[in-house]
């Protein structure tokens, strides 16, 4: 999504021309001037409205130093699919599939259909539902699961040592139907149909080589990934992502999000790890909790988002502050305390989650929904550490992790390169 060098301080901000050149290579149409603004000034946004003010017919360049959909200002909607290779799929099948996916993703993120449909007796190349819908900042991000590096495709020696199934973690009861996957595709757009269309078409292209393992649709972003975005709320009704890493914080991005030269697998440099957690929120129980307790569980005021130690949303929480009773103002088991970098040796992650619902629990009649947590990080150990810290989280009474997956997202591509190009050489 960003032209080479844009995340490195001192290397210079991208010019509009460079962004447009990147878009042109993707066959793209429009790149709003406002989008360049996100990256033009590492110290802050040009506009307080940012993404919200951007038009619908805006493309995010597919090619760049990193994959789009990570540092890209979080779009409003998500379609997330995991896929498993079918028995008998070969290394060549996988390589060909990743090439076909690259071509299709470059087209779709440029607002074009997967292919031109002008043969009356051929099934349409593109499934068609997004025709006429503005591309709405569609990004498509690919990830490789740990299982992809088993014996099947001769990739065992390419497996990053950090890419492994997550260990058992507190407050989880994982459903195998929502856990793991050989591959993932994360499609984000401000238009739900456009995001869904992307995953549907990639899965269709993959038929015979991969099949869907599971899929989730997210209907409201729960994180900001740039300072120019308003902080959204999750289904708890609280602002989420206030202290998230922002794309403009290039040092933090390099320290905590992008895989760097320390990687044991050079192909993953400039990539990132994606951790997905399907977190059910027992909203009925939460909604019955009284306001002050809700605020104590989170550690923030519900409406303003300010920490309980005062100020505004962006005031730094004072975790040391004590009340007249000698107790910490932000309780010891408050979510924001346990999740904070101050509490976790400075560890941070880039959260990029969405609210989701799968409808109603047929047995209980309660909402099957919550937070589809997605986070990007330099090493999954960051998430593991944070989640272990959350063992004592007061919020655990109201949430449950029911799905889980980890993926290594390769770096961005230059025009002419394909996903997998560094994996299969």
């Amino acid at each position, binding site marked *: 999504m960003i032209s080479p060098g844009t995340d490195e301080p001192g290397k210079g901000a991208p010019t509009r021309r460079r962004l447009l050149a990147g878009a042109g290579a993707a066959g793209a149409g429009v790149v709003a001037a406002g989008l360049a603004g996100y990256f033009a000034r590492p110290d802050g946004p040009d506009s307080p409205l940012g993404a919200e003010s951007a038009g619908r017919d805006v493309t995010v360049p597919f090619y760049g130093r990193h994959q789009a959909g990570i540092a890209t200002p979080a779009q409003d909607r998500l379609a997330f699919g995991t896929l498993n290779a*079918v*028995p008998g799929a070969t290394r060549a099948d996988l390589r060909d599939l990743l090439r076909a996916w690259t071509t299709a993703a470059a087209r779709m993120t440029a607002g074009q259909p997967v292919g031109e449909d002008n043969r*009356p007796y*051929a099934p349409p190349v593109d499934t068609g539902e997004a025709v006429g819908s503005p591309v709405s900042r569609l990004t498509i991000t690919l990830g490789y699961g740990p299982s992809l590096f088993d014996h099947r495709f001769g990739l065992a020696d390419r497996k990053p040592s950090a890419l492994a199934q997550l260990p058992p973690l507190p407050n989880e009861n994982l459903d195998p139907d929502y856990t793991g996957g050989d591959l993932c595709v994360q499609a984000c757009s401000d238009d739900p149909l456009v995001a869904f269309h992307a995953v549907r078409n990639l899965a269709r292209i993959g*038929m*015979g*080589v991969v*099949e869907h393992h599971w899929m989730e649709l997210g209907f409201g972003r729960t994180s900001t990934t740039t300072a120019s975005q308003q902080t959204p709320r999750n289904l708890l009704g609280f602002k989420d992502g206030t202290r998230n890493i922002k794309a403009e914080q290039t040092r933090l991005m390099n320290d905590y999000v992008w895989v760097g030269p320390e990687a044991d697998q050079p192909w993953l440099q400039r990539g990132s790890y994606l951790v997905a957690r399907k977190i059910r929120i027992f909203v009925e129980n939460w909604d019955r909790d009284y306001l002050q307790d809700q605020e104590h569980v989170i550690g923030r005021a519900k409406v303003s988002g300010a920490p309980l130690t005062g100020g505004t949303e962006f005031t730094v929480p004072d975790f040391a502050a004590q009340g007249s009773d000698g107790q910490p103002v932000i309780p010891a088991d408050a979510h924001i305390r346990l999740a904070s970098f101050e509490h976790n040796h400075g560890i941070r992650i880039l959260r990029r989650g969405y609210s989701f619902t799968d409808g109603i629990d047929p047995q209980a009649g309660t909402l099957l929904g919550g937070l589809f947590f997605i986070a990007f990080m330099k090493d999954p150990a960051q998430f593991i550490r944070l989640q272990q810290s959350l063992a004592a989280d007061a919020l655990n009474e109201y949430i449950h992790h029911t799905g889980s997956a980890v993926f290594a997202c390769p770096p961005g591509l230059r025009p002419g390169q394909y996903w997998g190009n560094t994996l299969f050489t």
Partner: protein
Amino acid sequence: MQTSGTSARPTATGAARSAPASRPRTRRSRWAPVSAAAAVAAGLALAASGCASSHGPAVSASGADKTTVTIQLTPQGCAPKPARVPAGEVDFVVANKDADAVSEAELRTADLSKILGEQENLTPGLSGGFSLTIQPGSYKINCPGAAQQHWDFTVRGKATGPSWPSNPQLAAAVHSYASYVDRSTAGLISHTQEFCQAIDAGNLSRAQILYPRARVYYERIEPVAEIWGSLDTDIDGRWENPVTVPSQFIGFHKIEQLLWADSTLAGAPSLCAGLVKNEQQLLTLVRSAQYNPLEMSSGATDLINEAATSKITGEEERYSNTDFPVLAANVDGAMEVVALLRPYLQHKDPGLVTQIKTRDAAITALLARYQASPGYDDTGYVEYSAVLDPQRRQLSAAVNALAESLSQLSVQVSSG
């Protein structure tokens, strides 16, 4: 009425056979029920890009409405009205009131190089015309001697098909497929009769063994049988899909319900006799039916779609759990089409042939895991309800992969 003497189109002898609408249909069939003569006629017309015929009581092969285009010959020209028509059969009515210098109208290709139809020798006071089936495209109406000799004429819409009869490989495939359908239908009848005999003899367990053995013949050719929608429903309709009236639940699956869910033969003999009667009617119909490569190839996809949606779920044989043999029969029926089209496909798209072979082999290998001897109800397979969801998922992926490949056949057989 005068016509050009060239290439009169054979008159079709059979009209489109439309199914009575009183019964629900399982699904839309992409196959057109045409009599042999009508199909041949359509084929010839296509082969010649439209051949003039006598302006007579020709019956459209598809049963679609004809379009009439009026051409008035005048000293100025021969403007067709309308100048844009949908693809299909078109009647040109040509009249000359008082144009001395103009006496004919021709339909030509846009580059004027070929005459597709014409009406000559129309002196003032005479009228005539010609009919033909026209593919979408741009054409010219030509009237020598007029002030403006060439007039634009456009045919819009979808092409009606390729000129396959002129391709010996495709023609042979279609011919062989017709006899495959005939043989399968005959096999269906003889095996259903055997099934009925066991029922009549009061032998429930024998009837249970013979049930899937008759079913497989139907499941190999189901898209053809679906042409006659109500007949398909009467033979193969499932409760609530599409049958919702008990009195119309009379086919295989009603008997299946009696034999397995109700463990009874009561009422089965008369149902079985009715089933055979319907199958015999089907045989009469398929023997006079003609197919084309496009129908064959889309039918192959339909068969595998059928397997993917109703066999993998266990819905089709919900009482008997004999989904394995019928699933295999769907694949057999589809692969028969591929085998017949293979000489043609082999040079047209060898990669597709290889992919289909690989994906068919993957299904065969998966099915082999569930083979047993003699198997559940002597089917050669285990009981389908014993197949767990993750295993069904594998089958589904394999079946869908094959269907995806087969869906690329139609464009191959329709692009000449």
